[in-house]
């Protein structure tokens, strides 16, 4: 066995060196999100009485509990764990799964692993190094959380930090298993992320079915979800330490499976074999090729947006009820969703959230162009009778048309889940497209003008996401909120329609796209 691990230390150092920017940024963002929370909650629910009040309302409100989970205590620490625990765990899970797939299947798929493994590297060393890299990231996050939350109670901080890191490691080892099964890194990431999504839904369903933390236990469904375990740990509210054993058991079990598979298969191969394709093809244009390359991801995103619409639509009534009872919470929703009745404010806030997620889709879709270019696959296509604009347009139609389709489907989902105000909610969804397109335009501009820096578009989308999600809760200054195109959209449904800002956003998007395309025509092809 030790021979199979030869070279692990070298590979670990190498992996940490490659991730020297990614991991610190992810860890810092996650810690910042959690550690800013006690102060925000202090402002919202300053007195123990206000906090106890919140707790009782949550216990009575099924649908909001589904969204943010039950409250187990009325200390600031307990409320922090309640408010951001699931999100911190989910973010740690995303970080971990990306790190593990990046250092296992990605390396094999690109062929780099072959050269590395021809050195003095044991058969299981790459997997071990990848898991240790994820472990380093999660340990760092755990240390930051424990140190930052210690003021709210040391045992609670320790439980919370270990729980969040535990969720991270559960998904790190899960990604390690999935990476053995698929030949494509993209598929490995997608499948693990789908499990994460399922864990989120299971926890939500379980929490809405439970007694709301007033005394009894959680539902079975919650216990099926690693994100649910984080709740069941009850950090800052009479911690149940034995729940940590669940994390340990899951990590050990999945790691054992991954190790077993990794030792048994050939490099680059998978347990899900590739089927042959057609001997002759019907693809005949650059646009058809772009659609063929992106149709799978468009389908996945479409299903996700429709379901999200249904789920948020279904919890609208309950959420609005609760928000209506708390002046400060109402204020936050109004900052997110506009000054109107609580139902409309909630709907507007959820529609806005989906708009932010659609910005991630548009960036990933536009950056397919960049991936085609840097991989060298664009070169022979552009060496054929395909103009650069036609080539780019094929992908951009899918990026921009696709984001409109996603918001349309979300709107239809709301219609199914909520059933009232169908027209206004659908309109509000489509309105988001103007801001989404501005982000897409930024990605096109970066791709056209600064091809090496095109990935910076992810940074822009991430910043907009942070401003949109945390900005209102932190009571961020207007100037910061205004940086995001989403901040300029009229708050619908409920608010008044203003065509002016929407027109400006659409015009801005058009200018950005035009600038990017001009750059694409003018510059050298990278490769």
């Amino acid at each position: 066995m030790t021979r199979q691990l030869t070279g692990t230390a070298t590979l670990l150092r190498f992996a940490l060196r490659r991730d020297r920017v990614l991991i610190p940024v992810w860890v810092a963002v996650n810690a910042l999100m959690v550690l800013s929370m006690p102060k925000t909650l202090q402002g919202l629910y300053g007195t123990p009485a206000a906090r106890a009040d919140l707790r009782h309302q949550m216990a009575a409100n099924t649908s909001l509990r589904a969204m943010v989970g039950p409250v187990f205590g009325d200390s600031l620490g307990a409320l922090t764990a309640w408010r951001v625990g699931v999100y911190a765990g989910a973010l740690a899970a995303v970080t971990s799964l990306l790190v593990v797939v990046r250092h296992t299947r990605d390396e094999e798929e690109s062929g780099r692993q072959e050269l590395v493994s021809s050195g003095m590297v044991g058969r299981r060393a790459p997997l071990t190094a990848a898991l240790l890299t994820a472990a380093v990231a999660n340990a760092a996050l755990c240390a930051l959380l424990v140190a930052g939350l210690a003021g709210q109670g040391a045992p609670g901080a320790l439980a919370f930090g270990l729980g969040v890191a535990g969720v991270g490691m559960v998904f790190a080892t899960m990604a390690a298993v999935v990476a053995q099964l698929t030949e494509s890194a993209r598929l490995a990431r997608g499948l693990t992320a789908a499990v994460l999504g399922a864990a989120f839904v299971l926890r939500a369903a379980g929490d809405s079915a439970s007694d709301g933390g007033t005394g009894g236990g959680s539902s079975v469904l919650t216990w099926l979800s690693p994100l649910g375990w984080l709740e069941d740990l009850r950090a800052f509210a009479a911690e149940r330490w034995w729940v940590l054993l669940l994390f340990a058991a899951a990590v050990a079990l999945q790691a054992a499976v991954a190790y077993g598979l990794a030792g048994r298969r050939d490099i680059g191969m998978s347990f899900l074999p590739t089927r042959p394709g057609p001997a002759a093809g019907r693809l005949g244009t650059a646009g058809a090729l772009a659609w063929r390359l992106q149709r799978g991801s468009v389908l996945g995103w479409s299903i996700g947006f429709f379901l999200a619409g249904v789920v948020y639509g279904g919890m609208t009534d309950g959420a609005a009820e609760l928000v209506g009872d708390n002046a400060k919470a109402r204020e936050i929703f109004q900052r997110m969703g506009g000054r109107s009745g609580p139902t409309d404010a909630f709907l507007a806030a959820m529609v806005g959230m989906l708009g932010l997620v659609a910005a991630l889709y548009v960036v990933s879709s536009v950056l397919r162009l960049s991936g085609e270019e840097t991989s060298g696959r664009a070169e022979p296509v552009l060496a054929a009778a395909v103009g650069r604009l036609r080539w780019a347009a094929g992908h951009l139609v899918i990026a921009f048309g696709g984001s409109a389709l996603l918001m349309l489907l979300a709107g239809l989902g709301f219609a199914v889940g909520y059933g009232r105000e169908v027209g206004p909610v659908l309109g509000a969804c489509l309105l988001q497209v103007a801001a989404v397109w501005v982000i897409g335009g930024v990605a096109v501009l970066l791709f056209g003008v600064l091809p090496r820096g095109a990935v910076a578009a992810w940074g822009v989308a991430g910043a907009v996401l942070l401003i949109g999600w945390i900005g209102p809760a932190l009571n961020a200054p207007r100037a910061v909120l205004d940086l995001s195109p989403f901040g300029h959209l009229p708050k619908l449904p409920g608010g008044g329609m203003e065509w002016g800002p929407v027109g400006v956003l659409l015009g801005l998007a058009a200018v950005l796209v035009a600038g990017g395309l001009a750059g694409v025509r003018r510059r050298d092809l990278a490769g």
Partner: protein
Amino acid sequence: MTKAITVSGLHKSFGRTRALDGLDLDVEAGEVHGFLGPNGAGKSTTIRVLLGLLRADSGATQVLGHDPWRDAVEVHRRIAYVPGDVTLWRNLSGGEVIDLYGRLRGGLDTRRRAELIERFELDPAKKGRTYSKGNRQKVALVAAFASDVDLLILDEPTSGLDPLMEEVFQRCVEEERERGRTVLLSSHILSEVEELCDRVSIIRKGRTVESGSLADLRHLTRTSVSAELAGPPDGLAHLPGVHDLDVRGHRVRLQVDTDRLDAVLRSLTASGVRSLTSTPPTLEELFLRHYQDEPGEVTV
């Protein structure tokens, strides 16, 4: 004959790196033109300028009578290109990619496509990720040879092919020549160049150092002569173009610039020749000299 490609004074820099430094290239219509040079000499950069993928800093470039940057699409309709490093889409089959490239060019001859797949022994139903390097190259080669175009630009197209497939490739290039098509072939495989190319251009450090037929190029290099003479040699050391002279008694070994061979032979026969061997430079020697020497020395 009209020119398929004319390039003069081509410059291209990437930041501080000077990739092309006044490169010239002339390819006649209907010929197979070898494009040679050591690694990093600028061959692929030149080809990417010819394809309009890079914009030249200065210099004139014409491909099939058009500026490849400005009229990229018109030019590309009549060009098939095979890169040295073929990357395919993981989830598209080889057959789909061949058909796609054919349609994106001037069109595809389906009979020839079937024939080429047979000759190259390619399985077109496999997905892109499952092909080996050689098989990925076959996908690009079948697409290129089956396309209805006037000019083929092949950038080290056979580096992954086995000797049998190399044979098939050479036959295909000859068929292209017979059909009157032009081929620009960048290659490091000298036997392939010798077999196929009507003319070659050798570039080094972004500049053309030699251009012409192989016979012309041979003429510019040295011939090895060794002879056994009746008497001691006389005055050989003073003849222009003689190098590495080694005299042991009546035995003489020397290198001579091929265009000075006549004077050396006269001098040798003056001393009386008992035996004589003269070896023309091998292709390898020829290229090694061009690849290694400073550009100025070669033609002296």
